């Protein structure tokens, strides 16, 4: 059984830390103010707007220590990651989840954060929150339904998302645990202790900035490692800023996915709002949902 961390109530504390790439403090300002306006207290870690001059928001030790402290601090009720980028994989094996396991809290983020969501799901059986991070609040983003979906999710409202039908959709209904995240990270975690177990689950995927051939290869990895064999359902989100080789691949990413899932019968929906763009609904990784892929449209409802 998956443990669902306690939902947040007014006055609860949200910690903000950057376990991966560097983020300037001002880029998280709107997020901090918005969380406060939602009635939460915000505790900002030193990794946000740190003195780091390279890619990362701090050294491995600094990033790990801050995340560890926030995992262990019982006064912090949820952790919102400032941004992804790259870096969680460098510290994941050094984190100690003993106290977190006793007092779980929501860990909120996506992209590189897929690493910790998978680790939580596979190793600790604790739900995580795949959702917009600090930068998504900027440029009036805090008003949109996607950032608002995070507010609803962390306060315990059950999600009922609807999205338009897509010509490639395979109709059907599935009720199962929802897991997933960034395709590149899911591929990268194969064979490791944080590898995602997708058996009899609804899997969602998104990615950004990858070559088409490379996404094809990663999807083959999912298939060849058995991750598609017993899926209950598949949710395809946004695949944006796609790159192609000089000799074109000749297929779109959606065509590739349609082809690779052709031998199976589980429902599949394309164009679900989970992505690196604005369209990015909060999804509780590890929680049961019902996916209904119908002729008129798609519904994803938390059970």
């Amino acid at each position, binding site marked *: 059984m998956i443990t669902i961390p306690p939902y947040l109530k007014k006055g609860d504390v949200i910690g903000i830390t950057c376990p991966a790439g560097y983020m300037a403090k001002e880029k998280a300002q709107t997020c901090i103010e918005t969380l406060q306006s939602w009635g939460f207290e915000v505790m900002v870690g030193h990794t946000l707007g740190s003195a780091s001059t390279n*890619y990362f928001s701090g050294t491995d030790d600094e990033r790990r220590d801050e995340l560890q402290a926030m995992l262990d601090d019982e006064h912090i009720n949820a952790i919102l990651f400032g941004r992804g980028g*790259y870096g969680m994989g460098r510290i994941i094996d050094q984190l100690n989840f003993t106290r977190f396991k006793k007092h779980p809290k929501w860990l909120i983020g996506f992209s590189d954060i897929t690493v910790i969501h998978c680790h939580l799901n596979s190793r600790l059986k604790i739900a995580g929150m795949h959702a917009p991070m600090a930068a998504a609040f900027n440029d009036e983003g805090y008003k949109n339904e996607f950032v608002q979906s995070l507010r609803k999710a962390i306060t315990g409202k059950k999600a009922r998302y609807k999205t338009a039908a897509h010509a490639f959709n395979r109709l059907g209904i599935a009720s199962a645990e929802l897991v997933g995240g960034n395709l590149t990270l899911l591929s990268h975690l194969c064979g490791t202790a944080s590898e995602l177990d997708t058996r009899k689950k609804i899997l969602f995927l998104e990615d950004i900035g990858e070559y088409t051939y490379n996404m*094809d290869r990663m999807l083959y990895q999912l298939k060849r490692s058995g991750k598609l064999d017993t899926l209950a359902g598949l949710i395809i989100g946004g695949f944006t800023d796609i790159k192609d080789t000089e000799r074109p691949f000749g297929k779109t990413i959606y065509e590739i996915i349609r082809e690779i899932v052709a031998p199976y019968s589980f429902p599949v929906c394309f164009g679900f709002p989970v992505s690196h763009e604005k369209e990015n609904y909060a999804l509780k990784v590890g929680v049961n949902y019902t996916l209904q892929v119908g002729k008129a449209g798609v519904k994803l409802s938390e059970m």
Partner: protein
Amino acid sequence: MMPLTAGFVSMGRINEMANEGDSPVQIPPYLKPGDTIGISCPAGSITHEDIQPAVKKLMEWGFQVKEGSTVGKKNFTFGGTDEERKNDFQEMLDDKSIKAILCGRGGYGAIRIIDDLDFKNFSKHPKWIIGFSDITVIHSHVNRNLRVAAIHSKMCNSFPADWSKAEQVQVDSIESIRQCITGEKMNYLFTPNAANRTGMADGELVGGNLKTLETMADTKTDLVTKDKILFVEDTDEYLYSIDRMFWNLKRTGKLAHLKGLIIGGFKVKKDDAGDEFGKTIEEIVMEKVSGYTYPVCFDFPVGHQKNNMALKCGAQHKLSVHLNECRLNEIR
């Protein structure tokens, strides 16, 4: 043990020095003059014209060449549809008159057909499969599942059209393929790098393209590296991505029980402005292997570059990393 000589071609030979726990590696028969080499494209496409420098050179070496049906075929980036590439490669695997298969080029595509290829005949009558980059898929499969040696080397697309303009390292790289397939023991001397970890190791040599290895993790072609000497190379990847791939090697346990580690060429994609990774390849590698004691060397001439020396994957090698010189010697 009897040393295997260049003329010994009767049967695939069991390598008795393979490690405990992993079955011995079969060395396909080496080639003799008059033998036939097949050219096939299991991944990217190449034109009939572009393989001519390779055809000419193979014939100069005394071999006959059989062009596969995928040469000159083009299905977008691929050397034919999955079906066409599979069928051509299957034919070459099964055709007893073909003693070696030289891949036209890498690119992408071997993973799309590897599970549909039938290696039953190949397993009984092994032959040399020659290539690198995307061909790492096939090499990894024959090493892991069939325990047959294969050659990691340049392919048809890298044979110079005009040898008078070729650099010596290109000439040597191509010549090393001939040495490999005719049964010479491979001996390489290469330049020490200050970041090397010195030491000596004996073991089966395995490896290939790092990204390709990562995307086979947890699949049935996932490379087993225990007690082996591993070499890796890659091209056109960001440093952060290379770092992530080495974490994959580490976290899947592939670095923990190595005999030695050989780092070939890494053509690094320049960091985006403001996203400077701040670590060198040497630093990225050494931090992953700091908990182990086996020898590690950089700058071995293998990769997407002019100096890409042929390596017999699956064969036993001795790696010697000293301060003043580094050697990789094939042993039996």
